[in-house]
């Protein structure tokens, strides 16, 4: 199937975010795709608060079946989350389980004032009551397909659809 141009979606997302983000907003990208995206948006929106990254491996709800087999990188939240406006950024919003895990982890750093969600692509099929405030595009995908953000060697974004089960 034809996938939209991720660079164009990123511009669209930046345009929408610009209205809701202030200097003190904390942008937090979820590894891996969301962290790349947050890096780009952090630069383009000229947010002065340093950006954070979350690796939600320790907060996944499928640990009992999936285990801990992939390399985990440390989460880094280089600002005080207490009372802060935080925008969690992910490449693809699907079941909502990743976002739940990210929110749980954020609360272990403190009590945010407000958390919003930005996603490059919302592919629907939520299993939790979670919604994004900022979305690049809404797409419908066949179940069982994995949609992810990828980067070429020059750092250009593109979307990749694969048959592989989501990595555990």
């Amino acid at each position, binding site marked *: 199937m034809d996938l939209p141009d991720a660079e164009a979606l990123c511009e669209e997302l930046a345009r929408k975010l610009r209205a809701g983000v202030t200097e003190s907003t904390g942008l937090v990208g979820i590894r891996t795709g969301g962290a790349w995206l947050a890096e780009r948006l952090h630069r383009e929106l000229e947010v002065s608060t340093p950006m954070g990254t979350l*690796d939600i*491996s*320790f*907060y996944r709800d499928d*640990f*009992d079946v*999936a*285990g*801990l*087999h992939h*390399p*985990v*990188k*440390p*989460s*880094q939240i280089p600002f005080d989350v207490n009372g802060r406006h935080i925008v969690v950024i992910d490449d693809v919003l699907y079941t909502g389980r990743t976002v739940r895990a990210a929110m*749980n*982890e954020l*609360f*272990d*750093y*403190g009590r945010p004032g407000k958390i919003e969600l930005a996603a490059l692509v919302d592919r629907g099929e939520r299993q939790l009551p979670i919604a994004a405030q900022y979305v690049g595009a809404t797409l419908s995908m066949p179940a069982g397909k994995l949609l992810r953000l990828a980067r070429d060697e020059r750092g250009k974004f593109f979307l990749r659809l694969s048959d592989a089960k989501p990595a555990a």
Partner: protein
Amino acid sequence: MRNPQLNGDGKLQHLLTIEGLPREILVHILDTAASFIGVTEREVKKVPLLRGKSVFNLFFEPSTRTRTTFEIAAKRLSADVINLNITVSSSTKGETLLDTVDNLCAMHADMFVVRHSSSGAAHLIASHVAPHVHVINAGDGRHAHPTQGLLDIYTIRHYKKDFTGLSVAIVGDVLHSRVARSLIHGLTTLGAPDVRVIGPRTLLPTGVEQLGVSVHHDMREGLAGCDVVVMLRLQNERMKGPLLPSAQEFFKSYGLTPQKLVLAKPDAIVMHPGPMNRGVEIDSSVADGPHSVILPQVTFGIAVRMAVMSILAGN
């Protein structure tokens, strides 16, 4: 024969010894541990990975540091921890090791952390328990102490970044040391090219060269140009035996003093698994000095044990 630590998929089911573990598993443990370091600096020093799991600390031999750090590690993973000090419990009433384990399994144990004076005790338990139960060896006789070996390796990697070109000297009572054995296996698996053991003939196991280390009886020769010095505890009970003249004699020849440490590289780190005998194997000015990373070892030990527990629980 299949490695009894690995399950049918080649994943880590129990951690009994570093010997024979593939490099990828060691690196996965070290990398996972690195991710746990930051957890202890947050407002909530816990992650929910082992929520609802019961970890039994089964210590048939006294230990403060190892037992405490295992307990903290399990608690930071949100597990329920039950500490059993067996030396004053069932075994003195005559219950066998496996009967004790069966009883604890009937209480729905998910993981055992075992310290025992007999080599192979953790293996025995691992071969006995149901497939969903995991066993971690926290020191068995003279055989192995894998999480100590892993935290030593973690500490070395933290300060020296990688193992290529690294010279590591392990000093003292290698003969009775499960710590030394675990560390040697870890270092050789990760490709450290120059591992030396230094000690009197009576405290070095015969054939230790076969583990891929060089043997030295003179501190000056052994410490020359090394990046890492690992001092081993000289166990008081050994000093009364025929292996050693006296603690003072030992200190003179093999105790780490500032004068001996200058032979190592200027940026060498000094490690010790604890508990230390100041003035026997290590001089206080070295133990508390700028080269010492003995206390960071303890802190890293928590993250390493968190990594081992969470990897096992997920397999």
